[in-house]
C-alpha cells in the first residue's frame, strides 16, 4: 500500500488538472469569466486601499442621491457611497460564496460518493439522514445556532454549508451509483485498490461535470442566503454589508432609488455569469473527451 506515492504521481504527471488548464486557456468565454472573477477578487482584496470613501462614512444630508461625479454609483439613504459599499460588500459576498460553497462541496461530494459507492443499507440510512436534515425547520436551526454559539462568520459558513451540501450529496450519489457499475471501477477493484482510493481517484473525478455546474449555481444562491441569515442576525452586522444585503435593501426602495438595487444587482449578476462561463469551461476542460470533437 503506497498511496502517498500515488499522490505524488498525481502531482507530477501532467494530470487532468494540468491538461484542463491548457484546454481552458483556449476557451475564450471561460477565460473572460476567469478574468472577471480574478478582477472582482482583486478589487475585493484591495478595497481597503482603493475604495473612494470609507464604507461607514455617512453624510445624512447627502442621503440617497443618484449617481454623480462625486459618487459614481450614487449614495444610499445614509449618504454612504454606493461604489464603496459594493466593493466592501463584495469582500463578504465573495468570501461567503466561495468558502461556504467549498464546505458544502467537500461534505456533499464525499458523503454522496460514499453513499452511492457503498450502496445497500448504508446508502439507505445515509440518504434517510439527508431526508431528515431536509425536513428539519431551518429557521429554528439557525436561531439555535446563533444562540448556542454566538454570532460569528465561521458559523455562517457552517450554517450555509449545512444546508447546501444536502443537494450536492444527492447529485453526487446519483452519479456515483451509475459510475460504480462501470467496468473501469471493477478494473480498479480487481487491481486490489482500496475502496477509498477507488472513490477518490476513479469515482469522484468522473462526477466533476454535474458537480461543477451545480457549484456555479450554488455560489450565487449562497450569497443570497447569507443576506437572509444576516437578517436573522447570524451573519454580518451593519455597517458592514454584502451584495445580498444591498440587494435586499435595494428591493425595498426600488421605485424611489433604483440605483440602490441595480448596481449591487449588476455586481452579483456579473459574478454569476463569470462563474457560469468558467464553470461550463471547466466542465469541458476537465472532460478529456471534449477535446476532439
Amino acid at each position, binding site marked *: 500500500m503506497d498511496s502517498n506515492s500515488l499522490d505524488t504521481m*498525481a502531482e507530477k504527471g501532467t494530470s487532468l488538472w494540468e491538461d484542463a488548464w491548457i484546454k481552458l486557456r483556449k476557451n475564450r468565454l471561460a477565460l473572460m469569466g476567469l478574468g472577471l472573477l480574478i478582477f472582482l477578487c482583486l478589487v475585493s482584496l484591495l478595497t481597503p486601499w482603493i475604495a473612494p470613501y470609507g464604507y461607514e462614512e455617512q453624510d445624512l444630508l447627502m442621503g440617497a442621491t443618484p449617481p454623480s461625479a462625486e459618487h459614481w454609483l450614487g449614495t444610499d439613504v445614509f449618504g454612504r457611497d454606493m461604489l464603496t459599499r459594493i466593493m466592501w460588500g463584495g469582500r463578504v459576498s465573495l468570501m461567503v460564496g466561495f468558502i461556504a460553497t467549498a464546505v458544502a462541496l467537500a461534505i456533499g461530494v464525499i458523503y454522496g460518493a460514499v453513499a452511492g459507492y457503498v450502496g445497500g443499507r448504508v446508502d439507505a440510512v445515509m440518504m434517510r439522514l439527508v431526508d431528515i436534515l431536509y425536513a428539519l425547520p431551518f429557521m429554528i436551526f439557525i436561531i439555535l445556532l446563533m444562540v448556542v454559539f454566538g454570532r460569528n462568520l465561521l458559523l455562517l459558513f457552517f450554517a450555509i454549508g449545512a444546508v447546501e451540501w444536502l443537494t450536492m450529496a444527492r447529485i453526487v450519489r446519483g452519479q456515483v451509483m451509475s459510475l460504480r457499475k462501470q*467496468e473501469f471501477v471493477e478494473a480498479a477493484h480487481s487491481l*486490489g485498490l482500496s475502496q477509498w482510493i477507488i472513490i477518490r481517484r476513479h469515482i469522484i473525478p468522473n462526477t466533476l461535470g454535474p458537480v461543477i455546474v451545480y457549484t456555479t449555481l450554488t455560489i450565487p444562491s449562497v450569497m443570497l442566503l447569507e443576506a437572509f441569515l444576516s437578517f436573522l442576525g447570524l451573519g454580518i452586522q451593519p455597517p458592514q454589508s454584502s451584495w445580498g444585503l444591498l440587494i435586499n435593501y435595494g428591493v425595498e426602495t426600488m421605485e424611489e432609488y433604483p440605483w440602490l438595487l441595480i448596481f449591487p444587482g449588476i455586481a452579483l449578476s456579473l459574478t454569476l455569469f463569470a462563474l457560469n462561463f468558467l464553470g461550463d469551461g471547466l466542465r469541458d476542460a*476537465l472532460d478529456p473527451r471534449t477535446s476532439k470533437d
Partner: protein
Amino acid sequence: MALLEVNGLKVHFHTRDGLVKAVDDVSFSVDCGETLAIVGESGSGKSVTCYSLLDLLPKPPAKIEGGTAVFDGIDLLTCDAAQMRRFRSNDIAMIFQDPMTSLNPFITVGEQLIEPLIYNPDKSRRQTRPDARMRAIELLDEVGIIDPEKRFDCYPHEFSGGMRQRVMIAMALINEPRLLICDEPTTALDVTIQAQILALIKTLQQKRNVAVIFISHDLGVVAGIADKVVVMCEGTVRETNDADGIFYRTQDDYTKKLLAAIPEGPKVMQSRAQADSTMIQVSNLKTYFRDHSKASIGAAKNYIKAVDGVSLQIQRGEILGLVGESGSGKSTLGRSILQLAPITEGSVSFDGTELNTLTPKQLVPWRRKMQMIFQDPYASLNPRMTVYETLAEPLLYHGLAHSKNIDQQVQLLMDDVGLARASLRKYPHEFSGGQRQRIAIGRAIATKPELIIADEPVSALDVTIQAQVLDLILNLVERHNLTMLFISHDLSVVRYISDRVVVMNKGVIIECGDTEALWANPQQQYTQQLLKAIPLADPKSERLRMADS
C-alpha cells in the same frame, strides 16, 4: 440503370482539429435483388457512406462535398427534406448495428413497427392503426417472432438481442422498401444468432427482390450473402468485385490482409501447460443473483443461477478457452474466480489457498497475482486518467515501482503492449479500440500477475485488430509466463488461442477437452451447433449452407 448509383461521393468532417476526409470519391451501384457488401475496418468510411445516403449524418461537423447518389432517378444528396422523408419511409430502409440501442426503450415494439405506416408522409399510403397492426403482426411472424400478437405490445427490453434484430428487420421491411441498408447487423450477436439473422436477410431479400447494402468489418460474415463486395479503406474504395473475385482471386494487398485476419485453423504455438501443476481449482462453484422481478409476496426468494455448480482446473501455463453464448454465465464465472462477484457456494483455490475465505484486506496480495482484461475497452478505462496514470497506478499501489523509476517502468509497459511511448500523456478516448485494449492489457500485466482472465478481449474489435491483439496476448503469455482463462463467444478465436476448451451453457459446463480434439469430435449437440454456426470466408460453402437452412 441500377436502382442506386453512387458516384464520386465525398464526405468531409470539419472538426476543431481540422478536416477529416471520411469518404473520398466513393462510387458503387446496387440493383434490385442484389446484395452489395461494403467491407472495411472502423474508420474506413463505410458507415458514413451509407448514412450520407439517407442524410443521417450530424451536420455540422459532416459535410457532403461532392458526388451524386441517384436513386430511382433522383439524387439523394440534393433532394429536399420532404422528398428525403418519403424515401426514408417508403423506399430505403436501414438496419443498425446494435439492436439494444436502436429501438426506443420507451415505446412498444408494435408501435415502433407501425410508425412508418401510420405517419407516412405520403398520405395515400398512410394506413389506419388496425390495418397497420395486422400488417405488423404478419411481418413479425415472417421474421420469426413467436406469438407475434402478444409480442406486438411488448417493450424492446423484453426481447433478446437476436429477437430485437428481427424486429428491426421487420420494421425496415414494413413499407416494402426497395433498398435495404444493413449496418453491421450481426456484429453484436452470438455466432448462432448471427447465422440465423444472415439467413433471414437472405431469404427475405430473395422473396421481395430488394437491393441490399450490407456493411461489415468482417469479410467472413459477408461471404455467404454478398453478390458484390466493395472493400473500403481510409475513405476510399480499394477494390470492387463480385464475391468470388474477392474471396478467391483478389490481387489487392489490403483485401488480402482482411482475409488473412479471419481467425481460422488451430493454434500454432505449443501448449505450455504444466500438467502436474494446478494453479486454479474451482469446485462446485455457484453464483446466484437475487431475481427481484420474479419475487412475489410470501414466496421464497428467487435466484438467477448465473453459475450453477461449476468445477474446473486451470493448469499453470495453459490458456484455457471458455466458450458460451451470452447469458451462459461465462463472464460471471470469470468474475467469481477473481472474487469480483460474490460466490454463493463452492470454492475457488489459487495455489491451494481458498480465495473465497479471505477478507478483502487479505485478498490484496492475491489480487496482484490475478488480473482481468475486460471486453469493452471503452468502458474499462477511466476516461479521466491518462495512460500514464492508468499504468502507473497498479505499479505504485503494489509497490512494484517507486517514484524514481516509475517513468521508466511505465515506458517499458508501453513497449510491452506495443504502444508508442510518446502517447503516455493521452487519454483513453484519443486511442482507437485496439489501442485501448492494449492499454487495458498493459494495466493487467503491470502487476506482474500469474493469472489473467480475459473476458471477450477482442470481440469488440475489428478482425484485423483482433488478430493483432490476439498475437499480442499470445506473445505476452509466452514472455511473462502467464496462465490465462480466455472467455469468448467466438469459437474461431478460442481455437486460435487456447490449449484446452470448456463449453458452458446455462450456468453449467457441458463439455471440455483439448481444443483440437473437441473441434474434431464434439460430443454434445450444443457444441456441434456452435461449431456449425461459425461463418467461413468461403462464399461457395457458405451459400450451400444457407441454402440448407
